[in-house]
């Protein structure tokens, strides 16, 4: 399946929070929920699909950081449906999903199984779920084969890396080079705390990612969850001089000023909206940021569309 077909949205749910509502301040809430516009047709520009020729679809909202549930979880199927239902309520058109193993480091069989389930999820929710291929870089040739199978041939939109290795470890370089060859982004788990995170000894931070971005200026790197990755002010400053490093706004932390500072320091063109399962936090932060509507639209979907549009045939 090509990424162009994947991006074309076939189902158009009714969002509880329309884009118009999403992008403006919520003074209407003072008048009660009845004042909120609920109909998509009247309030929302129709997404411009990839098939129509433009990847910079105005109005499309893409969650750059989402997860489907591991099938060892008894309620995985219902929980996956809840994710889509939540996206419907919040007006999120598409979710870029990976499935992660419950324990790290991920084994070869472990991440292969996860990617198979992500592919199945893309079929269960066509046009809504886009797939990241999750790999452990430590498996060398098998890792690269997995990426070629799912990203090269399987229509996945990108690569997800977690905490098995620091992103600056040379074992990661072939993955970055393959991502450049395929023209897809890498979403990398990241956090910077001012203490040693014992359960994640190889935890990448924004500084490591900036270093990797400078080594590979053609790569499209996404620093995960600035709002769930420790000291976000540190992360934003560390990313400043790496123009091919994007910042993902996801995470459960709703500290005021996060999105505003990120926009001021790295620019709105380098921010991509995400939730990482913190759905109302994800939407609320963008709505609360003191930015122009067109800038919010870039963050919500325009920038991610730009990245997806760089995929090579």
């Amino acid at each position, binding site marked *: 399946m090509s990424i162009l077909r994947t991006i074309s949205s076939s189902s158009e749910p009714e969002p*509880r*929070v329309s884009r118009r*509502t999403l992008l403006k*301040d*919520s*003074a*209407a*809430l*003072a*008048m*009660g*929920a*009845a004042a*909120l516009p609920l109909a998509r047709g009247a309030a929302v520009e129709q997404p411009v699909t990839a098939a129509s020729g433009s990847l910079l679809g105005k109005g499309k909202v893409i969650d750059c950081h989402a997860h489907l549930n591991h099938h060892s979880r008894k309620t995985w199927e219902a*929980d996956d449906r*809840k*994710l889509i*239902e*939540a996206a419907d*309520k*919040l007006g999120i058109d598409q979710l870029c999903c990976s499935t992660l193993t419950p324990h790290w480091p991920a084994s070869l069989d472990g991440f292969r199984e996860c990617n198979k389930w992500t592919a199945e999820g893309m079929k269960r929710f066509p046009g809504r779920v886009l797939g990241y291929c999750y790999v452990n870089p430590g498996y060398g040739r098998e890792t690269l084969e997995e990426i070629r199978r799912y990203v090269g041939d399987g229509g996945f939109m990108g690569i997800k890396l977690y905490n098995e290795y620091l992103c600056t470890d040379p074992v990661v370089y072939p993955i970055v080079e393959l991502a450049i060859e395929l023209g897809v982004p890498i979403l990398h788990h990241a*956090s910077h*705390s*001012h*203490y040693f995170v014992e359960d994640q000894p190889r935890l990448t931070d924004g500084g490591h990612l900036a270093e990797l971005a400078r080594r590979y200026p053609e790569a499209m790197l996404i620093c995960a969850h600035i709002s*769930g*990755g*420790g*000291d*976000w*002010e540190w992360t934003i400053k560390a990313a400043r001089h790496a123009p091919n490093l994007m910042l993902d706004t996801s995470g*459960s*932390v*709703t*500290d*005021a*000023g996060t999105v505003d500072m990120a926009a001021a320091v790295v620019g709105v063109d380098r921010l991509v909206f995400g939730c990482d*399962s913190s*759905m*109302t*936090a994800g*939407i*609320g*932060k963008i*709505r*609360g*940021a003191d930015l122009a509507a067109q800038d919010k639209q870039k963050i919500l979907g325009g920038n991610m569309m730009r990245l997806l549009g760089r995929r090579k045939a």
Partner: protein
Amino acid sequence: MIVDVNAYLGHFAFRRLRHNTAASLLALMDSKGIDKAVVSSADAITYRNAQAGNEELAEEVRGHSDRLIPYAVVNPFYAGWQDDLKICREEFGMAGLRLYPKWHNYQLSSPCCKELVDAATEQGMVISIPIRVEDNRERSWLLNVPDVPLEEIIEIVKAHPKARFILLNGLGYTGSPLGRKDNGLPANYAIELSRLSAVLANEIGQYIANLGAERLMFGTGMPFNYPDPALVKLEVLDAGEADKEKIRSQNAMGWLRL
């Protein structure tokens, strides 16, 4: 009408806050449709003498008592807290407290804290307890302040059935007796929703089902937090308008006697 039971004025030692003066917070509230807010001093969280923060707060909210409801931060292990409480209640008109047991390094179960809770309850004051101030992963290298464990909250609500508690900045209540039906606890506490989920696990919905919408209150945590995530929760919450109205303002109006 929206009443925010979880707002602040002043500075926080470890991060710059915007909208942290009375004028700028009111402007933010206007832009978000929030009518009233319970505010306490953010400075008092890290001042040794918290009363200095209360004095600053009293000065800042002067002339705005129709919209900004000041609460006192009192440390029951600091000299003169009884005098401070009296001044805050009688001179500053502060109708409630905020307690920071982990930041001020005391136990909620300690005799001094018991004395403070009893004294505040005697005067009809509401006692709010922020479970956390900020996410622990972003903490300064200078300190490591844990969240207030819900077990300690259970003990204090049991020990003071006549007191009224509002629990701020917490989550996971439905995994503890605090959020369960028929939990045997006095109905003397309410939960503020800024960190509760309204979709996926939908802790707010579970909490309404277990204890009723009467025990939930709207709060944002502004200006620490963007107010919008809490507002979005109300928008997408699967609940009737009557329940939403209770959460939005009615419960707080009743508890705060507004």
